[in-house]
Protein backbone atom coordinates (compact mmCIF):
# COMPACT_ATOMS: atom_id res chain seq x y z
CA UNK A 1 0.00 0.00 0.00
CA UNK A 2 1.48 3.37 -0.93
CA UNK A 3 2.52 5.58 1.93
CA UNK A 4 0.15 8.49 2.10
CA UNK A 5 -0.52 11.53 4.20
CA UNK A 6 -4.09 11.81 3.02
CA UNK A 7 -6.15 11.90 6.24
CA UNK A 8 -9.16 10.22 4.64
CA UNK A 9 -7.00 7.29 3.51
CA UNK A 10 -5.30 7.04 6.88
CA UNK A 11 -8.66 6.98 8.61
CA UNK A 12 -9.98 4.35 6.22
CA UNK A 13 -6.93 2.19 6.82
CA UNK A 14 -7.35 2.50 10.57
CA UNK A 15 -11.01 1.43 10.23
CA UNK A 16 -9.97 -1.56 8.13
CA UNK A 17 -7.33 -2.65 10.62
CA UNK A 18 -9.72 -2.25 13.56
CA UNK A 19 -12.35 -4.32 11.76
CA UNK A 20 -9.89 -7.11 10.98
CA UNK A 21 -8.50 -7.13 14.52
CA UNK A 22 -12.05 -7.33 15.91
CA UNK A 23 -12.74 -10.38 13.67
CA UNK A 24 -15.33 -8.40 11.70
CA UNK A 25 -15.58 -9.78 8.18
CA UNK A 26 -14.55 -7.55 5.28
CA UNK A 27 -17.20 -7.50 2.55
CA UNK A 28 -16.82 -6.77 -1.17
CA UNK A 29 -17.58 -3.07 -1.33
CA UNK A 30 -15.73 -2.16 1.86
CA UNK A 31 -12.64 -0.06 1.59
CA UNK A 32 -9.54 -2.19 1.88
CA UNK A 33 -5.80 -1.71 1.34
CA UNK A 34 -4.77 -2.35 -2.26
CA UNK A 35 -2.25 -4.94 -1.09
CA UNK A 36 -4.98 -6.83 0.82
CA UNK A 37 -7.11 -6.91 -2.32
CA UNK A 38 -4.15 -7.99 -4.47
CA UNK A 39 -3.16 -10.73 -2.01
CA UNK A 40 -6.71 -12.09 -1.97
CA UNK A 41 -7.07 -11.98 -5.75
CA UNK A 42 -3.81 -13.87 -6.15
CA UNK A 43 -4.64 -16.46 -3.49
CA UNK A 44 -8.28 -17.05 -4.47
CA UNK A 45 -7.43 -17.18 -8.18
CA UNK A 46 -4.64 -19.68 -7.57
CA UNK A 47 -7.04 -21.70 -5.46
CA UNK A 48 -9.73 -21.61 -8.17
CA UNK A 49 -7.23 -22.57 -10.87
CA UNK A 50 -6.06 -25.50 -8.71
CA UNK A 51 -9.61 -26.81 -8.46
CA UNK A 52 -10.19 -26.89 -12.20
CA UNK A 53 -6.70 -28.12 -13.14
CA UNK A 54 -7.18 -30.74 -10.40
CA UNK A 55 -10.02 -32.24 -12.42
CA UNK A 56 -7.54 -33.56 -14.97
CA UNK A 57 -5.45 -36.13 -13.09
CA UNK A 58 -8.59 -37.79 -11.72
CA UNK A 59 -10.73 -37.51 -14.83
CA UNK A 60 -7.94 -39.53 -16.43
CA UNK A 61 -9.36 -42.60 -14.65
CA UNK A 62 -13.11 -42.12 -15.17
CA UNK A 63 -13.26 -44.37 -18.23
CA UNK A 64 -11.23 -47.07 -16.49
CA UNK A 65 -12.87 -47.10 -13.06
CA UNK A 66 -13.10 -50.74 -11.95
CA UNK A 67 -16.84 -50.71 -11.15
CA UNK A 68 -19.95 -48.66 -11.83
CA UNK A 69 -19.98 -47.62 -8.17
CA UNK A 70 -16.42 -46.29 -8.35
CA UNK A 71 -17.12 -44.59 -11.66
CA UNK A 72 -20.20 -42.78 -10.34
CA UNK A 73 -18.24 -41.65 -7.27
CA UNK A 74 -15.33 -40.39 -9.37
CA UNK A 75 -17.59 -38.48 -11.75
CA UNK A 76 -19.32 -36.83 -8.76
CA UNK A 77 -15.96 -35.91 -7.27
CA UNK A 78 -14.60 -34.40 -10.47
CA UNK A 79 -17.86 -32.45 -10.86
CA UNK A 80 -17.40 -31.15 -7.31
CA UNK A 81 -13.92 -29.89 -8.21
CA UNK A 82 -15.46 -27.91 -11.08
CA UNK A 83 -18.02 -26.53 -8.64
CA UNK A 84 -15.31 -25.56 -6.16
CA UNK A 85 -13.50 -23.71 -8.92
CA UNK A 86 -16.69 -21.81 -9.73
CA UNK A 87 -17.39 -20.86 -6.08
CA UNK A 88 -13.85 -19.51 -5.88
CA UNK A 89 -13.92 -17.64 -9.19
CA UNK A 90 -17.14 -16.05 -7.94
CA UNK A 91 -15.40 -14.99 -4.72
CA UNK A 92 -12.43 -13.57 -6.66
CA UNK A 93 -14.78 -11.62 -8.90
CA UNK A 94 -16.24 -9.79 -5.90
CA UNK A 95 -12.82 -8.10 -5.68
CA UNK A 96 -13.27 -6.48 -9.07
CA UNK A 97 -11.56 -8.90 -11.45
CA UNK A 98 -13.35 -10.54 -14.40
CA UNK A 99 -13.72 -14.25 -15.06
CA UNK A 100 -12.24 -14.02 -18.55
CA UNK A 101 -9.28 -12.11 -17.19
CA UNK A 102 -8.60 -14.79 -14.54
CA UNK A 103 -8.83 -17.63 -17.06
CA UNK A 104 -6.58 -15.73 -19.41
CA UNK A 105 -3.95 -15.36 -16.69
CA UNK A 106 -4.12 -19.10 -16.01
CA UNK A 107 -3.83 -19.97 -19.69
CA UNK A 108 -0.82 -17.69 -20.18
CA UNK A 109 0.94 -18.86 -17.03
CA UNK A 110 0.69 -15.49 -15.27
CA UNK A 111 -1.22 -17.03 -12.37
CA UNK A 112 -0.31 -20.36 -10.83
CA UNK A 113 -2.15 -23.44 -9.64
CA UNK A 114 -1.08 -25.93 -6.99
CA UNK A 115 2.02 -27.79 -8.17
CA UNK A 116 0.62 -31.10 -6.86
CA UNK A 117 -1.45 -31.43 -10.05
CA UNK A 118 1.69 -31.57 -12.15
CA UNK A 119 2.25 -35.16 -11.04
CA UNK A 120 0.76 -38.00 -13.13
CA UNK A 121 -1.91 -40.50 -12.05
CA UNK A 122 -0.23 -43.71 -13.13
CA UNK A 123 -2.55 -46.34 -11.62
CA UNK A 124 -6.08 -46.64 -10.27
CA UNK A 125 -4.66 -46.52 -6.73
CA UNK A 126 -3.57 -42.93 -7.42
CA UNK A 127 -7.24 -41.95 -7.33
CA UNK A 128 -7.32 -43.25 -3.76
CA UNK A 129 -4.03 -41.61 -2.78
CA UNK A 130 -5.22 -38.27 -4.15
CA UNK A 131 -8.45 -38.47 -2.18
CA UNK A 132 -6.74 -39.45 1.05
CA UNK A 133 -3.54 -37.39 0.90
CA UNK A 134 -4.07 -34.54 -1.56
CA UNK A 135 -7.64 -33.79 -0.48
CA UNK A 136 -6.61 -34.44 3.12
CA UNK A 137 -3.85 -31.83 2.85
CA UNK A 138 -6.27 -29.47 1.13
CA UNK A 139 -8.79 -29.87 3.98
CA UNK A 140 -6.08 -29.18 6.57
CA UNK A 141 -5.24 -26.01 4.67
CA UNK A 142 -8.83 -25.01 4.03
CA UNK A 143 -10.62 -25.51 7.33
CA UNK A 144 -8.90 -22.43 8.86
CA UNK A 145 -9.80 -20.48 5.69
CA UNK A 146 -13.48 -20.81 6.67
CA UNK A 147 -12.64 -18.06 9.19
CA UNK A 148 -10.75 -15.91 6.69
CA UNK A 149 -11.32 -12.16 7.15
CA UNK A 150 -12.74 -11.78 3.63
CA UNK A 151 -16.42 -12.77 3.74
CA UNK A 152 -16.98 -14.19 0.23
CA UNK A 153 -13.81 -16.33 0.43
CA UNK A 154 -14.74 -17.64 3.89
CA UNK A 155 -18.27 -18.51 2.72
CA UNK A 156 -16.95 -20.33 -0.35
CA UNK A 157 -14.58 -22.29 1.88
CA UNK A 158 -17.39 -23.40 4.21
CA UNK A 159 -19.20 -24.90 1.25
CA UNK A 160 -16.03 -26.48 -0.15
CA UNK A 161 -14.93 -28.02 3.14
CA UNK A 162 -18.30 -29.75 3.55
CA UNK A 163 -17.88 -31.37 0.15
CA UNK A 164 -14.18 -32.21 0.54
CA UNK A 165 -14.79 -34.64 3.35
CA UNK A 166 -16.60 -36.95 0.89
CA UNK A 167 -13.55 -36.70 -1.37
CA UNK A 168 -11.17 -37.69 1.35
CA UNK A 169 -13.26 -40.57 2.64
CA UNK A 170 -13.86 -42.10 -0.78
CA UNK A 171 -10.09 -42.04 -1.34
CA UNK A 172 -9.38 -43.67 1.99
CA UNK A 173 -12.02 -46.32 1.38
CA UNK A 174 -10.58 -47.02 -2.07
CA UNK A 175 -7.07 -47.52 -0.65
CA UNK A 176 -8.40 -49.61 2.21
CA UNK A 177 -10.14 -51.90 -0.28
CA UNK A 178 -6.96 -52.29 -2.33
CA UNK A 179 -4.84 -52.81 0.78
CA UNK A 180 -7.03 -55.77 1.73
CA UNK A 181 -7.03 -57.18 -1.81
CA UNK A 182 -4.55 -59.32 -3.71
CA UNK A 183 -0.79 -58.89 -3.24
CA UNK A 184 -0.74 -56.99 -6.51
CA UNK A 185 -3.51 -54.61 -5.45
CA UNK A 186 -1.80 -54.04 -2.14
CA UNK A 187 1.50 -53.27 -3.89
CA UNK A 188 -0.33 -50.83 -6.15
CA UNK A 189 -1.80 -49.01 -3.14
CA UNK A 190 1.61 -48.82 -1.45
CA UNK A 191 3.24 -47.53 -4.63
CA UNK A 192 0.64 -44.76 -4.95
CA UNK A 193 1.15 -43.68 -1.33
CA UNK A 194 4.93 -43.73 -1.85
CA UNK A 195 4.63 -41.39 -4.81
CA UNK A 196 2.02 -38.98 -3.39
CA UNK A 197 3.25 -38.59 0.20
CA UNK A 198 6.07 -36.10 -0.32
CA UNK A 199 4.30 -33.94 -2.92
CA UNK A 200 1.34 -33.77 -0.49
CA UNK A 201 3.62 -32.39 2.24
CA UNK A 202 4.86 -29.79 -0.25
CA UNK A 203 1.26 -28.59 -0.74
CA UNK A 204 1.57 -26.57 2.47
CA UNK A 205 4.14 -24.36 0.79
CA UNK A 206 7.71 -23.43 1.67
CA UNK A 207 8.95 -23.61 5.27
CA UNK A 208 8.04 -20.66 7.47
CA UNK A 209 11.50 -19.11 7.25
CA UNK A 210 11.15 -19.03 3.48
CA UNK A 211 7.56 -17.81 3.21
CA UNK A 212 7.78 -14.01 3.04
CA UNK A 213 4.06 -13.35 2.73
CA UNK A 214 2.87 -15.50 5.64
CA UNK A 215 3.34 -12.90 8.35
CA UNK A 216 1.25 -10.27 6.61
CA UNK A 217 -1.45 -12.77 5.66
CA UNK A 218 -1.68 -13.90 9.28
CA UNK A 219 -1.90 -10.26 10.45
CA UNK A 220 -4.73 -9.68 7.99
CA UNK A 221 -6.49 -12.84 9.19
CA UNK A 222 -6.35 -14.32 5.70
CA UNK A 223 -4.21 -17.16 7.01
CA UNK A 224 -4.65 -18.47 10.53
CA UNK A 225 -1.64 -20.76 10.77
CA UNK A 226 1.81 -20.93 9.23
CA UNK A 227 2.75 -23.46 6.56
CA UNK A 228 4.82 -25.52 8.98
CA UNK A 229 2.08 -25.62 11.62
CA UNK A 230 -0.41 -27.00 9.10
CA UNK A 231 2.10 -29.46 7.67
CA UNK A 232 2.77 -30.83 11.16
CA UNK A 233 -0.96 -31.14 11.82
CA UNK A 234 -1.35 -33.10 8.58
CA UNK A 235 1.51 -35.51 9.37
CA UNK A 236 0.10 -36.13 12.85
CA UNK A 237 -3.28 -36.98 11.32
CA UNK A 238 -1.89 -39.22 8.57
CA UNK A 239 0.47 -41.48 10.49
CA UNK A 240 -2.24 -43.39 12.40
CA UNK A 241 -4.47 -43.40 9.29
CA UNK A 242 -1.67 -45.08 7.32
CA UNK A 243 -1.35 -47.66 10.08
CA UNK A 244 -5.06 -48.46 9.81
CA UNK A 245 -4.60 -49.01 6.10
CA UNK A 246 -1.69 -51.32 6.79
CA UNK A 247 0.44 -49.19 4.47
CA UNK A 248 3.70 -47.42 5.25
CA UNK A 249 4.65 -43.80 4.64
CA UNK A 250 7.90 -43.48 2.65
CA UNK A 251 9.90 -41.69 5.33
CA UNK A 252 12.43 -43.64 7.44
CA UNK A 253 12.85 -40.60 9.69
CA UNK A 254 9.23 -40.71 10.93
CA UNK A 255 9.19 -41.07 14.69
CA UNK A 256 6.97 -39.88 17.51
CA UNK A 257 8.52 -37.18 19.65
CA UNK A 258 7.07 -37.75 23.11
CA UNK A 259 8.27 -34.40 24.41
CA UNK A 260 6.63 -32.37 21.63
CA UNK A 261 3.70 -34.69 21.21
CA UNK A 262 4.18 -34.64 17.43
CA UNK A 263 5.49 -36.90 14.68
CA UNK A 264 8.95 -35.90 13.47
CA UNK A 265 9.45 -36.29 9.76
CA UNK A 266 12.37 -36.21 7.32
CA UNK A 267 13.62 -33.35 5.18
CA UNK A 268 11.46 -32.28 2.25
CA UNK A 269 13.13 -32.01 -1.15
CA UNK A 270 12.50 -28.31 -1.77
CA UNK A 271 14.59 -28.42 -4.96
CA UNK A 272 11.93 -30.69 -6.44
CA UNK A 273 9.19 -28.32 -5.23
CA UNK A 274 10.86 -25.33 -6.87
CA UNK A 275 11.52 -27.24 -10.09
CA UNK A 276 7.84 -28.21 -10.41
CA UNK A 277 6.88 -24.62 -9.61
CA UNK A 278 9.19 -23.43 -12.41
CA UNK A 279 7.29 -25.64 -14.83
CA UNK A 280 9.63 -28.61 -14.83
CA UNK A 281 7.27 -31.12 -13.24
CA UNK A 282 6.21 -34.27 -15.10
CA UNK A 283 2.88 -32.87 -16.35
CA UNK A 284 3.06 -29.05 -16.31
CA UNK A 285 2.84 -28.64 -20.06
CA UNK A 286 0.21 -31.33 -20.50
CA UNK A 287 -2.08 -29.81 -17.84
CA UNK A 288 -1.96 -26.30 -19.25
CA UNK A 289 -2.28 -27.48 -22.84
CA UNK A 290 -5.35 -29.54 -21.94
CA UNK A 291 -6.90 -26.57 -20.11
CA UNK A 292 -6.34 -24.26 -23.07
CA UNK A 293 -7.71 -26.85 -25.48
CA UNK A 294 -10.84 -27.37 -23.36
CA UNK A 295 -11.39 -23.61 -23.24
CA UNK A 296 -10.88 -23.12 -26.97
CA UNK A 297 -13.03 -26.10 -27.90
CA UNK A 298 -15.79 -24.69 -25.72
CA UNK A 299 -15.73 -21.30 -27.45
CA UNK A 300 -18.49 -22.18 -29.92
CA UNK A 301 -20.76 -23.22 -27.04
CA UNK A 302 -20.24 -19.91 -25.26
CA UNK A 303 -20.80 -18.00 -28.48
CA UNK A 304 -23.89 -19.97 -29.45
CA UNK A 305 -25.48 -19.51 -26.02
CA UNK A 306 -24.77 -15.77 -26.10
CA UNK A 307 -26.17 -15.49 -29.65
CA UNK A 308 -29.31 -17.39 -28.63
CA UNK A 309 -29.79 -15.13 -25.60
CA UNK A 310 -29.32 -12.05 -27.80
CA UNK A 311 -31.79 -13.36 -30.37
CA UNK A 312 -34.46 -13.95 -27.76
CA UNK A 313 -33.61 -10.51 -26.45
CA UNK A 314 -34.11 -8.76 -23.17
CA UNK A 315 -33.94 -11.80 -20.94
CA UNK A 316 -30.23 -11.55 -20.31
CA UNK A 317 -28.61 -9.93 -17.34
CA UNK A 318 -28.30 -6.19 -17.05
CA UNK A 319 -24.71 -6.42 -18.18
CA UNK A 320 -25.62 -8.13 -21.39
CA UNK A 321 -25.37 -5.06 -23.61
CA UNK A 322 -22.08 -6.12 -25.10
CA UNK A 323 -23.58 -9.51 -25.87
CA UNK A 324 -26.70 -8.07 -27.48
CA UNK A 325 -24.78 -5.57 -29.61
Amino acid at each position, binding site marked *: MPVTDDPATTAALARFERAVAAETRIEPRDEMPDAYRATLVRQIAQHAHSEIIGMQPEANWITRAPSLRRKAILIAKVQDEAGHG*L*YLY*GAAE*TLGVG*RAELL*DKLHTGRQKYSSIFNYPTLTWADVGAIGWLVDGAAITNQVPLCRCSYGPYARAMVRICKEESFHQRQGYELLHTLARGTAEQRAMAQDAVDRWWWPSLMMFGPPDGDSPRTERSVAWRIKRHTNDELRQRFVDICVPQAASLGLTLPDPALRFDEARGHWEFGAIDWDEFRAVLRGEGPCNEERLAQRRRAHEEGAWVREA*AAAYAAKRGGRGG*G*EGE*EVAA
Partner: protein
Amino acid sequence: MSGTTGGAVGAGSASGTSGASGADWPLWEVFVRPRRGLAHTHAGSLHAPDAELALRNARDLFTRRGEGVSLWVVPAAAIAASSPDERDPFFAPAADKPYRHPTFYEVPDGVRHL
Protein backbone atom coordinates in the same frame (compact mmCIF):
# COMPACT_ATOMS: atom_id res chain seq x y z
CA MET B 1 -7.21 1.95 0.01
CA SER B 2 -9.90 1.22 -2.49
CA GLY B 3 -13.53 0.31 -2.52
CA THR B 4 -15.28 -1.35 -5.41
CA THR B 5 -17.97 0.69 -7.04
CA GLY B 6 -19.33 -2.14 -9.15
CA GLY B 7 -22.31 -4.40 -8.66
CA ALA B 8 -24.40 -4.35 -5.54
CA VAL B 9 -22.83 -7.45 -4.08
CA GLY B 10 -19.38 -6.56 -5.22
CA ALA B 11 -18.77 -8.38 -8.44
CA GLY B 12 -19.57 -6.96 -11.78
CA SER B 13 -17.45 -3.89 -12.22
CA ALA B 14 -14.85 -5.78 -14.16
CA SER B 15 -16.98 -8.50 -15.65
CA GLY B 16 -17.77 -8.11 -19.26
CA THR B 17 -14.42 -6.50 -19.91
CA SER B 18 -12.70 -7.97 -22.92
CA GLY B 19 -9.60 -10.02 -22.39
CA ALA B 20 -7.88 -12.35 -24.78
CA SER B 21 -10.59 -14.87 -23.85
CA GLY B 22 -13.43 -12.55 -24.82
CA ALA B 23 -16.27 -11.08 -22.84
CA ASP B 24 -17.87 -12.85 -19.89
CA TRP B 25 -21.49 -13.84 -19.88
CA PRO B 26 -23.58 -11.61 -17.57
CA LEU B 27 -23.30 -12.20 -13.84
CA TRP B 28 -26.29 -13.55 -11.86
CA GLU B 29 -26.82 -13.70 -8.13
CA VAL B 30 -28.31 -16.97 -6.92
CA PHE B 31 -30.78 -17.36 -4.03
CA VAL B 32 -31.70 -20.77 -2.66
CA ARG B 33 -34.70 -21.79 -0.55
CA PRO B 34 -33.33 -24.68 1.55
CA ARG B 35 -36.77 -26.08 2.26
CA ARG B 36 -40.40 -25.02 2.28
CA GLY B 37 -41.14 -22.58 5.06
CA LEU B 38 -37.76 -20.83 4.81
CA ALA B 39 -36.89 -17.75 2.79
CA HIS B 40 -34.54 -17.75 -0.18
CA THR B 41 -31.04 -16.82 0.90
CA HIS B 42 -28.06 -15.67 -1.14
CA ALA B 43 -25.83 -18.59 -2.09
CA GLY B 44 -23.35 -17.04 -4.52
CA SER B 45 -23.06 -15.92 -8.11
CA LEU B 46 -22.45 -17.36 -11.55
CA HIS B 47 -22.24 -16.36 -15.19
CA ALA B 48 -24.89 -17.35 -17.73
CA PRO B 49 -26.10 -16.00 -21.06
CA ASP B 50 -29.77 -15.92 -20.05
CA ALA B 51 -32.14 -16.61 -17.17
CA GLU B 52 -32.93 -20.17 -18.24
CA LEU B 53 -29.30 -21.24 -18.32
CA ALA B 54 -28.60 -19.27 -15.14
CA LEU B 55 -31.22 -21.46 -13.40
CA ARG B 56 -29.77 -24.66 -14.81
CA ASN B 57 -26.23 -23.65 -13.87
CA ALA B 58 -27.41 -22.63 -10.40
CA ARG B 59 -29.02 -26.06 -9.93
CA ASP B 60 -25.77 -27.80 -10.88
CA LEU B 61 -23.60 -25.47 -8.85
CA PHE B 62 -25.54 -24.90 -5.64
CA THR B 63 -27.92 -27.85 -5.20
CA ARG B 64 -25.87 -30.97 -5.97
CA ARG B 65 -26.74 -32.43 -2.57
CA GLY B 66 -30.35 -31.44 -2.14
CA GLU B 67 -29.53 -28.04 -0.63
CA GLY B 68 -32.60 -26.42 -2.14
CA VAL B 69 -36.20 -26.82 -3.26
CA SER B 70 -36.43 -23.49 -5.09
CA LEU B 71 -33.99 -21.15 -6.83
CA TRP B 72 -34.04 -17.47 -7.79
CA VAL B 73 -31.52 -15.98 -10.20
CA VAL B 74 -31.25 -12.21 -10.44
CA PRO B 75 -29.04 -10.20 -12.82
CA ALA B 76 -26.34 -8.79 -10.54
CA ALA B 77 -26.63 -5.43 -12.25
CA ALA B 78 -30.32 -5.22 -11.30
CA ILE B 79 -29.60 -5.16 -7.58
CA ALA B 80 -29.48 -1.78 -5.90
CA ALA B 81 -27.60 -1.68 -2.60
CA SER B 82 -26.93 0.70 0.24
CA SER B 83 -23.40 1.91 0.87
CA PRO B 84 -21.20 -0.71 2.56
CA ASP B 85 -19.84 1.85 5.01
CA GLU B 86 -20.83 0.86 8.54
CA ARG B 87 -20.93 4.49 9.57
CA ASP B 88 -23.36 5.20 6.80
CA PRO B 89 -25.85 7.85 8.00
CA PHE B 90 -28.42 5.87 6.03
CA PHE B 91 -28.80 3.58 9.05
CA ALA B 92 -28.38 6.31 11.67
CA PRO B 93 -32.12 6.74 12.41
CA ALA B 94 -32.15 3.24 13.90
CA ALA B 95 -29.14 3.71 16.13
CA ASP B 96 -30.53 6.22 18.65
CA LYS B 97 -33.95 4.74 19.33
CA PRO B 98 -33.45 2.13 22.00
CA TYR B 99 -37.12 2.59 23.00
CA ARG B 100 -37.98 0.48 19.96
CA HIS B 101 -36.66 -2.57 21.83
CA PRO B 102 -38.62 -4.30 24.59
CA THR B 103 -35.52 -4.38 26.80
CA PHE B 104 -35.75 -0.56 27.08
CA TYR B 105 -38.68 -0.85 29.47
CA GLU B 106 -38.59 -1.63 33.15
CA VAL B 107 -41.31 -3.90 34.41
CA PRO B 108 -42.03 -4.55 38.10
CA ASP B 109 -40.86 -7.92 39.46
CA GLY B 110 -43.39 -10.67 39.31
CA VAL B 111 -45.35 -9.40 36.31
CA ARG B 112 -45.84 -12.27 33.89
CA HIS B 113 -46.63 -12.71 30.20
CA LEU B 114 -45.19 -9.31 29.33
